[in-house]
């Protein structure tokens, strides 16, 4: 029916523009969003309940003090928050955690914050930091980036967040980034999952099929170090043992904005 055709054309036109402006704007989070946990060193009495409770061993304990939280291992489950008898640890809204170095994911001991999120707010949502990101994007996006996704044994969570990059809200094409069907067309390999034994060869051959220069971004706790499956005889504990990882994007799964941050970081690295 022609009327339906008109309706179909009108629907998108009548709808308000819903697309995100990330990275210029902060990611759209909810009050409840579980970002990286943070320890308040004043309340913390080093009882170690958080270390004991962490399912992935992300909280490191050195000589009686909690030293650091490894964002690359954290699955954002809040077990540490529930376990702490002194309520010295809280989830923050910190979700943009990408780093070009594995060590860079290990959160250094932060000075005490005023509220649960206060320190983080100033750190990440600082307008000058946003301006810097914008400049980075402008200077690096002189050309487009073609991405090939590789599932190396994920639970599908990271993959769905990558698929969400293509929806009308995140709309990653607005940044000149797009997904391609073949590794031969790709500049960058976006790896999710633990790297199973059954996929190791396929993953290696996918990488080898890419033209130089090529980059690898590991998305999610599994691709960084095996996540909750680290140590299983059937998995190789992350993409790093098989592929040269350039950027790590923590999360379980990382939010779409965090994946965009990782991709932009990879662009920055590529000279």
């Amino acid at each position, binding site marked *: 029916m022609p009327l*339906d055709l008109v309706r179909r054309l009108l*629907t*998108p036109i009548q709808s308000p523009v819903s697309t995100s402006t990330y990275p210029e704007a902060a990611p759209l*989070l*909810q*009050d*409840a969003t*579980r970002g990286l946990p943070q320890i308040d060193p004043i309340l913390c*009495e080093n*009882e*170690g*309940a958080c*270390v*004991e409770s*962490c*399912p992935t*061993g992300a909280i490191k*304990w*050195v*000589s*009686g*003090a909690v030293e650091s939280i490894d964002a690359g291992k954290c699955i*954002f*489950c*809040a*077990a540490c928050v*529930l376990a702490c008898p002194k309520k010295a640890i809280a*989830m923050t809204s910190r979700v943009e955690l990408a780093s070009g170095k594995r060590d860079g994911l290990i959160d250094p001991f932060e000075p005490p914050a005023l509220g649960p999120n206060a320190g983080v707010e100033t750190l990440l949502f600082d307008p000058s930091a946003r301006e810097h990101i914008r400049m980075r994007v402008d200077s690096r996006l002189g050309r487009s980036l073609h991405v090939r*996704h590789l*599932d190396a*044994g*994920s*639970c*599908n*969570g*990271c*993959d*769905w*967040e*990558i698929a*969400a990059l293509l*929806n*009308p*809200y995140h709309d990653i094409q607005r940044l000149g980034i797009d*997904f391609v069907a073949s*590794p031969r067309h790709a500049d960058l390999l976006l790896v999710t999952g*633990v790297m199973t*034994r*059954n*996929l190791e060869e*396929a993953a290696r051959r996918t990488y080898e099929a890419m033209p130089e220069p090529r980059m690898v971004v590991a998305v999610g706790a599994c691709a960084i170090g095996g996540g*909750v*499956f680290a*140590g*299983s*005889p*059937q*998995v190789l504990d992350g993409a790093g043992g098989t592929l040269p990882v350039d950027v790590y994007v923590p999360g379980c*799964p990382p*939010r779409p904005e965090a994946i965009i941050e990782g991709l932009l970081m990879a662009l920055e690295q590529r000279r």
Partner: protein
Amino acid sequence: MSEPTTITARAIRERLAAALGHAVSVSGPGKAAARADDEMLVMVTREEFAAAVTAIRDTGARHVMLVGFDLRRPASTSGSSAARAAEARSAAAAGGAGASAAAAGGAGAEAKSAAEAASAARPGAGLAIEEVLAVPNGPIVRLRVEIPPDDRTYPSLTPLVPAAQWDERECHDLHGIVPAGHPDLRPLVIHEPDPPAAPYKSFVAHGSGVYQLPVGPIHAGVIEPGHFRFSAVGESVLYLDARLFYTHRGLERFVEGRTFAEALPIVERACGVCTVTHATVYSRAVEQLTDTEIPPRARAARVLLAEMERLYNHVGDLGNMCAGVGFNFGTSRLGWQKERLLRLNEALTGHRYLMGVVAPGGLRLDLEKRGLVGLGAAVAEIEHEVRSIVRLLVRSDSFMSRLHGTGILTRAEALRLGALGVAARASGLPDDLRRDRPADGYADIEVPQIGSATGDVAARFHVRAQEAAVSAALIKELAGSLPAGPAMVVPPGGPRSGSVALAGAEGPRGASWLWLMAGADGRIERLHLRSASYANWPVLASVVPGNLVPDFPLINKSFELCYACTDR
């Protein structure tokens, strides 16, 4: 259809006695007497196995799972996790703070005694398999057969119950138990077994003009890995052989020897988009083992979360079916509605895919008050949008002509191969665990029956759209009437070693079942998770022949099968 009569455990026992020629001993789930008619365990010999399965099958029973287990294996805590736990404990002890040292000391002693118990004799120690069948309007029957370690064979069930074909292959891979007479014993789960098996050969069709089309394991889109080998003539598929389990992470072995709490985040991540379903079946199995009654708030909240999960999945899947024919209008509009639903998930639980909420005993994190405010209205608004998009799609002839008559799954084939979920309901089977075996809050509400009889892609499209509307209505009802009070009770101490619990839940892709055997000290002896996708993959492979190669993505998306929870 008239309401079928209820089949009692007693009737099953009589039927088995008639088939086997002697009385059988039956044990129930052990705890509440009220559940005696819900579940029963029957021990049979290898020789009697086929006759017993046939007797139960002839009541119209559906295959739930076949699980193998090996109770003679040494303590099963995997190396690195044990090391990690020990490291954490010794670090904690080094920390020296009073309370934690006491707690850590307790945990250390626990681990030690678990290891001791594991090496000691166990009840019914040995190799065994269990075939689990669900009798409609009757009990779940677990037929257990012990397998002698020096002769690891039994007569294959696949000729009797074709739905068991993959279960038997998996059991063969993981436990070395040989189902004699199985038509296809190629490696399924472990691609490169040790010792090496014969090189893997895809099954292909031969003949003049037949060509092979290999696809995957790495696919063109943002999807999971699997290898498909099409045998085709021109555009028509003659045969499809699917090789999966590329994302096999060894989940079941990996959780053995862990405490119930430790295993939760791992089982929850069997599949990232059915997290509520899998956390719920796991939690309910643990609750059965520990005889835990969850609080009313948790009962209702689990239904709310399960319906949120169904809704975002169904809306996303409707969009993906548009992507399967390259109809971007639907993909984009429905993708936007799905994004809005993910935001509601995040507001409600702090996680876009609802992870970390459901736990044994109730909910480990209560629902956010702010997320509940206005949830019903927001979901109703999104549902209204989805409905209007679907209306436009249905009126688009070019779209619907791709869906009608494509990928037909007949009722008989669905029954034969044990199809589940939307795939079953779109082919005239009424199966829905929310109605058939209601658990948690589903016992308190009425879920309308939805179905279609045509069994094609269009039927699955319509069933999904209608189920999305039902989910939205249930969410609206529950969000406003969630009981107050605690959301969690701490499950009491460890269950008897060797006791087994079985729990099923209707997820977005169909019924997922979890079989859980307790070990010593509240640890897991053996866990088996059979997701709906596991059941539906062989169904898909049988539906595709006769269709065009370019229709495969569409048919695939209409089944919406998950690789991760199949492969585990």
